[in-house]
């Protein structure tokens, strides 16, 4: 579900777009890119119908800078790169799964505990004559079904589908019967019968078609089934048919003493949704309890931390790509699924476009230098010269030595220290509720001049605090360090020393400050507390004096760490081998992922934005002038006219098909992979 098959297919064809992208990377590609490229493709198609694909490939290669590189044992390297990609992506994927599972686990445990608590409450009103088809005459309070509401915090529930499946598995492996009902089961079309059928089929795989509650009851009565609660998971409650769901709940509530059913309901929006969906008489039958999933942003933060910063994968993204992914996540549907899709696409593009990308897995090796020198020796001359011709290498030019492996090792070391520093920043970010994604984007920015960013921080803290909001997230974090109370400062430094353990130079500095903070607090905490109680203000003022000093010390430490070690990957030689920077081609491919239908309105919008951005000054003028309204409407007409003309041209060339009657606001794209 997470990755469409088309993404994987892309791998083989993507050399084209990647190579393509290198010369248009400054252009910002979007849908209408079709406009520029179409004629060439069109001609090509005509001339080469059968072997078009291969020929085109060669064409593209000829125009690319790495044509010579590619000619030689092209196939072998492609194979190696493919392997490297698979290796890397599977690493990333498993990390992601691990992280997400870890995040959900606490929730699962809570739910599990709650389920068993509810189960025991049901059980303590012990069931009699379970086979009887008539209701047990007991208090009305015993007729309520315990129901957990899981607020998924995102109106899109793609991410949560997996989560609910996992939950089912978790419940089953922890002593519950579990069934999973989707909105499709609870629809008017099929009625209540299909709910029961689906429920029973999941409990008893070889069930027949006609199911009623007594049947479930008699199944439940068997000795091997009897001691477990039945958890019924409904993943997206809002989409269920309210009448059927209400009947279902009423029916089961009559049986809850005999069949201890416990609902777990996924709610994508808010509690109001439930209130609107179910009539009050049904709400009475539910004994609700609320659980909340980690918000998408928090989930994203942990993903960023484990996948991109602690990076055990050997694949990195450039600043622009990171920024794009951030926006894509925040403004788009906010699902991990779409983020991963974009990341995978980036990964694919990187490994297919970068000739030396097969060196990436070296990042993971214990003895990376040995791995790399082994690889580098067998490297063809062409590739070697390609590596040293990389812009980053040319720029650096410090290398008297021509040792690629050493360069790569250095890169690895720099990257390691970079990620250690970023992790330290994250720790601060967690304390002050700054999104880690923002810190990450700032830390990865190659244009980030540490001096400038920190400039204000070197001033006394009180003057700096006013500007800190503008100073970006990193300076906010530093400011936070200055303001921390002493005990959390101590904790923070403890965390830091964990993160910096592997980089010796850093470790020394952190340890020094940490011990400075630890020493006085170790001996005096208890004493000091007492003195505060007894002598009041005297002791506390002494404490006040002490804390800012330590805070300053910690902040200075952070600043010095940032200065020394926060080297964004894009300013390191050879980073091109590991780092994907081509945001344009990523955007383009993502746009293509949406399929062949183009929404006219969207298309027009992106067209307009493009046209307007090309001359922002003119636009501004229009906006501010007193006669803005007229000017604006005229400009608008102009745009619409341009747009219409362009679309018509495309239609005439046969690249798009006109809207059909059924979907009047959609065009069909006919040309792909231009």
């Amino acid at each position, binding site marked *: 579900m997470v990755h469409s098959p088309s993404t994987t297919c892309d791998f083989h064809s993507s050399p084209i777009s990647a190579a393509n992208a290198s010369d248009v990377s400054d252009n910002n590609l979007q849908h209408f890119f079709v406009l520029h490229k179409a004629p060439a493709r069109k001609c090509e198609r005509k001339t080469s119908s059968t072997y078009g694909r291969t020929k085109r490939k060669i064409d593209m290669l000829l125009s690319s800078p790495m044509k010579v590189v590619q000619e030689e044992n092209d196939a072998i390297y492609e194979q190696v790169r493919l392997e490297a990609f698979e290796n890397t992506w599977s690493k990333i994927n498993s990390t992601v799964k691990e992280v997400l599972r870890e995040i959900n686990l606490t929730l699962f445990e809570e739910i599990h505990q709650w389920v068993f608590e509810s189960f025991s409450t049901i059980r*303590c009103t012990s069931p009699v004559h*379970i086979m009887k*088809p008539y209701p047990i*005459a007991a208090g009305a*309070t015993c007729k309520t079904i315990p129901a957990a509401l899981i607020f998924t915090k995102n109106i899109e529930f793609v991410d949560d589908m997996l989560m609910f499946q996992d939950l089912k598995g978790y419940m089953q492996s922890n002593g519950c019967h579990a069934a999973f009902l989707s909105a499709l089961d609870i629809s008017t079309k099929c009625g209540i019968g299909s709910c029961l059928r689906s429920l029973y089929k999941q409990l008893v795989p070889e069930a027949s078609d006609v199911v*009623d509650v007594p049947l479930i009851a008699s199944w439940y009565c068997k000795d091997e089934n009897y001691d477990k609660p039945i958890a019924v998971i409904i993943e997206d409650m809002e989409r269920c048919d309210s009448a059927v769901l209400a009947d279902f709940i009423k029916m089961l509530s009559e049986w809850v003493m005999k069949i201890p059913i416990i609902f777990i309901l996924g709610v994508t929006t808010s509690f109001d949704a439930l209130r609107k969906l179910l009539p009050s008489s049904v709400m009475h039958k539910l004994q609700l309890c609320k659980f909340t999933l980690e918000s998408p942003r928090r989930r994203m933060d942990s993903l960023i931390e484990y996948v991109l910063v602690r990076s055990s994968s050997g694949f990195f993204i450039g600043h622009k790509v990171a920024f794009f992914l951030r926006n894509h996540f925040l*403004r788009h549907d906010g699902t991990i699924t779409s983020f991963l899709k974009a990341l995978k696409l980036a990964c694919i593009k990187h490994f297919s476009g970068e000739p030396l990308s097969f060196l990436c897995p070296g990042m993971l090796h214990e003895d990376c230098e040995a791995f790399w020198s082994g690889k580098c020796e067998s490297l063809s001359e062409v590739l070697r010269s390609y590596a040293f011709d990389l812009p980053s290498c040319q720029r650096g030019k410090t290398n008297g030595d021509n040792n690629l492996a050493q360069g790569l090792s250095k890169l690895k070391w720099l990257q390691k220290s970079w990620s250690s520093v970023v992790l330290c920043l994250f720790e601060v970010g967690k304390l002050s509720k700054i999104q880690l994604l923002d810190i990450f984007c700032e830390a990865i920015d190659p244009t980030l001049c540490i001096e400038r960013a920190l400039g204000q921080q070197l001033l006394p803290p009180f003057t700096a605090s006013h500007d800190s909001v503008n100073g970006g997230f990193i300076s906010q974090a530093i400011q936070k360090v200055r303001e921390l109370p002493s005990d959390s400062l101590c904790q923070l430094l403890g965390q830091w020393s964990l993160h910096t353990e592997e980089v010796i130079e850093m470790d020394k500095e952190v340890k020094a400050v940490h011990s400075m903070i630890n020493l006085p607090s170790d001996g005096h905490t208890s004493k000091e507390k007492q003195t505060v109680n007894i002598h009041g203000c005297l002791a506390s003022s002494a404490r006040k004096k002490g804390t800012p000093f330590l805070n300053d010390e910690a902040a200075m430490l952070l600043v010095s760490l940032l200065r020394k070690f926060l080297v964004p990957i894009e300013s390191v030689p050879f980073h091109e081998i590991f780092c994907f920077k081509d945001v344009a081609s990523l955007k383009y491919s993502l746009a293509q992922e949406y399929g062949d239908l183009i929404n006219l309105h969207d298309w027009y919008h992106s067209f307009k934005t493009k046209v307007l951005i090309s001359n922002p000054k003119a636009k501004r003028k229009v906006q501010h002038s007193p006669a803005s309204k007229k000017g604006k409407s005229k400009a608008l007409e102009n745009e619409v006219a341009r747009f219409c003309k362009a679309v018509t041209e495309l239609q005439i060339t046969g690249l798009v098909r006109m809207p059909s009657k059924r979907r009047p606001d959609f065009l069909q794209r006919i040309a792909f992979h231009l």
Partner: protein
Amino acid sequence: MAKDGVIPLSPGRKTRSSSQLLPSKPSPQNVYPFSSQTQSQELFHCLYSSEEPISLATLISSLPRRKPQILEILRLVGSLNSPMFPLLIYGGPSNGKTISILQIFRYLNRPFVYAGCRTCYAPRILFDSVLRQLLLHGRNPIKGNSGTKRCEKPSEFIDLLRIALVQAINALREKNLKSGSEEVDRGEMIYLIFDNFELLRSWDKNSNIVPLLLRIHEILKIPEVGIIYISSSTPDAYYLCTGSIEPITIYFPDYTLEDLHGIFMRNQLNPKLYSSFLSVVLKPFFRVTRRVDELSVAFQPLFQKYCKPLVDRSVVPDEAMKRKLFDNLQPYLTVSLNDLFMVLSWTSHQIKQEGDHQKKGIRKSNRKEASNELDFHMSMSAKYLLLSAFIASRNSATLDASLFDSSGGLINRKRNKNSQMSMDRKDSMAEEILLKGPGSFPLERLLAIFQCITSVTESMVEEEKYENGAAIESESVGLTSDVLLQLSTLCNANFICKSGSCPLEGSTRYRCTIDEEMAVRVAKSINFPLSSYLYRR
């Protein structure tokens, strides 16, 4: 109703309140009801109430305020082996109908078949359920599964039912002859009880099922069969359906305040304390609902709250203490009165949680939820689309032209210059719009408004960017995703609903179902000036 009342009689049954009181002493049959040995016994006793029979006195005392109805039913059911006319028992929901019948048969100790139309959600299931219960009884243990054939049609059902009934009655006769004076004579009558009869009317596909079941006594023409219908709707609801003899009706009236007091006072650990609690709580809640189930769900958490300050729950409260306890309860009382139907169930659990363990971060109060932050993620374009839907639903279509100019911008209305007269007229118009509820709109209008509001904000955002001097990204608001995809997302979340197609245009119309509070929250999250787009004063 008196569902609480049953407790002392049946050793196996306990509510939470009673379980503390009575040490559990389950009858041996109930301890392992599923072992193979008892299962066959279970089958054999299928047609009887499985509990110990009760005396008339306990029957009546277990169902407070239902004495006249019980006696009436007993009279109509008649003595052993006397045929009876069909009975229709009706009255409001949660009124003690079902429990009365079940208890009566426990007292009579005669065989019966119970079919609840809620559990048996389709005719086929209903037929099946009735037949299975009869066949379980009628069949010889040696013969094995003789009648597992499923029946689909009403006519088949009648045939099978007749066969099954005759079998069962014969079996009863045999048994009575065999046992002689050893066992109590249970008679030769079999009673069919159809509960939740009112639900049958909504099985519209089989509109003939109601008349069929109402006439079943006539059709079968077996005097040894008694039929009892239980319904929460009045007999008028069925008159149209039948051409047969009307069943004899027995009405269960709603409980009065005193009745409810009596019901809730049963089996209390500390009657004095509970009585003082009821004197505070019952009256205000009685105005809202008289259903025992709803009331007992509502009272349970409130009583916990009421008792919280008490160390010893067996204390007999004096006047001062009562007043103190009441003051303590009052804030919760008003809250739960307002939210009787919804939130109470949720708070009830919460209270239990707090009382039990003081853990889990699920203790977000309902008030907090009403803060003005949106607590779930929505994409930018979904937010804009939702707002445009809200605008389209709130404003009438004719007002669009006055709100948006030709280029999509917002016209600044000058409000000060209006005369009093036109103000008044506008006021009444706005009120009318509010009273009418959300209006429906076609897709085209939604998209038009969407385009207008996004074009305005887009230009605003861009401007900001240039002023900041940081043109980092060319992406403006990020409205690149598929609008129709977003629309379906919103439909799934029940924020927008499809409201049937317009008979003239034939296209689907939509309606925005969110309230203003929510819309304001969404608008706030994207800094959208919603109020200037809404037509009012």
